[in-house]
């Protein structure tokens, strides 16, 4: 009879009870942690581009406005894009260097649309830290970035300086021989 009274008491103390306490601590921490993550995510994600910034309108551009040897900088998704009407000499220089040692090797043909080698359409943000390079600078007949001295050739490939990549290609298609749609 004594045993039957004493046992339940013993069950509530000692190791069993501590196990329950640990479980309660862990469960509380887990639920609390999940709560913190659940509220932290919206607070971080609100920093990401909002729907209006994501609504990427594609743009059309009339190439007849760009004379041979001329270059225009236009804004697409608020980022600068070069449209360069290359001369034959520029194209030849780019093709000649196709297999020269480069940081980010690419042939000139892979950077233009077939049959439209005179039109080079690339992002105008230097792949180093985002400045807009200026044409007719550097030793390769192409662009020189004013910020940290990256030099691009006439195919906008990186040849010298800190930038790791060629100027990025942007998605575009020819709607007619004188009209492109970017985006």
């Amino acid at each position: 009879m004594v045993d039957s009274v004493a046992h339940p008491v013993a069950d509530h103390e000692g190791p069993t009870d501590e196990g329950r306490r640990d479980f309660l601590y862990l469960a509380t921490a887990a639920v609390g942690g999940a709560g913190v993550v659940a509220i932290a995510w919206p607070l971080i994600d609100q920093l990401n581009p909002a729907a209006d910034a994501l609504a990427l309108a594609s743009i059309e551009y009339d190439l007849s406005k760009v004379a041979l040897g001329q270059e225009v900088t236009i804004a697409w998704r608020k980022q600068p894009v070069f449209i360069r009407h290359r001369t034959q000499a520029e194209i030849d220089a780019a093709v000649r260097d196709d297999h020269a040692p480069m940081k980010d090797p690419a042939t000139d043909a892979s950077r233009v649309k077939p049959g439209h080698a005179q039109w080079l359409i690339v992002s105008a943000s230097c792949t180093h830290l985002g400045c807009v390079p200026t044409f007719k600078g550097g030793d390769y007949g192409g662009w020189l970035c004013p910020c940290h001295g990256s030099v691009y050739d006439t195919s906008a490939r990186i040849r010298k300086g800190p930038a790791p990549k060629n100027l990025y290609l942007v998605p575009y298609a020819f709607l007619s021989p004188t009209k492109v749609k970017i985006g």
Partner: protein
Amino acid sequence: MEEHISTYQPKSAFERWLDARLPIVRFSADLMEFPTPRNLNYWWTFGGILAFCLGIQIVTGIVLAMHYDPSGAGAFLSVQRTIMRDVNYGWLVRSIHANGASMFFLAVYIHIARGMYYGSYKAPREVLWLLGCVIYVLMMATAFMGYVLPWGQMSFWGAKVITSLLGAFPVIGDPITKLLWGGFAVDSPTLNRFFSLHYLLPFIIAAVVALHIWALHVPGNNNPTGVNVKSKADTVPFHPYYTVKDMFAVSVFVIVFAIFIFYLPDALQKTDNNIEANPLVTPAHIVPEWYLLPFYAILRAIPDKLTGVLALAAALGSLFALPWIDTSKVRSKRYRPMARNLWLIWVVGVFILGWCGSQEPDGHVFPGGAGPVFIDYGINTVTWLSRIAAIYYFAWFWAITPLLGFFETTLPVPDSLATPVLSHPATVPAGAAAAPQTKG
């Protein structure tokens, strides 16, 4: 603070009543009574000057925020027209705030240099030093975001370049830059969040300053000899001795400050920043504010993007690690002739890096040609000079400083900090207590 016994006596019934409930008067009284080494020189006044700078920036910043429009469309005009021309004394408040940032950095660089020279970072003041480094980094973040707000060409392209630094990291780089920009380029959302953070960070700085002062009051001040305070005779109460000295130093500092505000308001500004931000055209010559130039030169010296960014981070990180890099038992470089000279060369190197940062990467150091090309640039170019200076910058931290502790011969260190004070020819005889302003 801990060892210091409070000597505050409530003087009225109200003070006694308050002291039992919120002992704030006791707290302030104890701060003023704080025993401070009697031999602190004028290099020690820059802590007070920095507190003054933070106060000025917060007050003028709150005023500017009342008139500023943090939108891509309105920011430039709200600064150039509303604040500079229309608001009563807006030009003055902006001039104080813009030049105040430079004065703040001038003071913090002297404060850091003082800590380095006299070994204030050494045990038991490592946490004090780390908190100071945190404040410095927060200051740079705040200044950078503040520089973006006028939304001129330099603001915009500075923002683009600095945020693009994070893009150097593989995989996470791109999502992080987008997160920071709130778009695909630096734009109105970026400006908006920078304004919000630029308003927030100074208050975080103020909180870390409170921790910095707390960490100072546990071991107490270092002093020019670097020798520990041994008795009460080595100290004087903070007030009136150092409050008066600090006030004098602040007054001199304000004179220099006022020369900039009233006579050279644009001397530290780039003219390009008076052109509204244009995402399609980068200014021909883009440089950061003078106080970031040495780091900019280190970034540019390295031909690889990710390595450059990591070197920039390491240049700052080395400062944090200094208490553990320095193996010398002697705190003050006053008794370490070799360490002093090598450190002075380091300081000159930082100035050289700063100069390099302000020049074009292929500019020439000495008049004439670029010299023979070595690897990628001529040896007479700014790029190679910054590489040499950057190598010394890191070598001082990671080779010279740890090794010196083992090999250098130090001069005899005084037994107590009173010894050099009392033996100083300009000091009044011992027993006359009022000699704390003696320069050591």
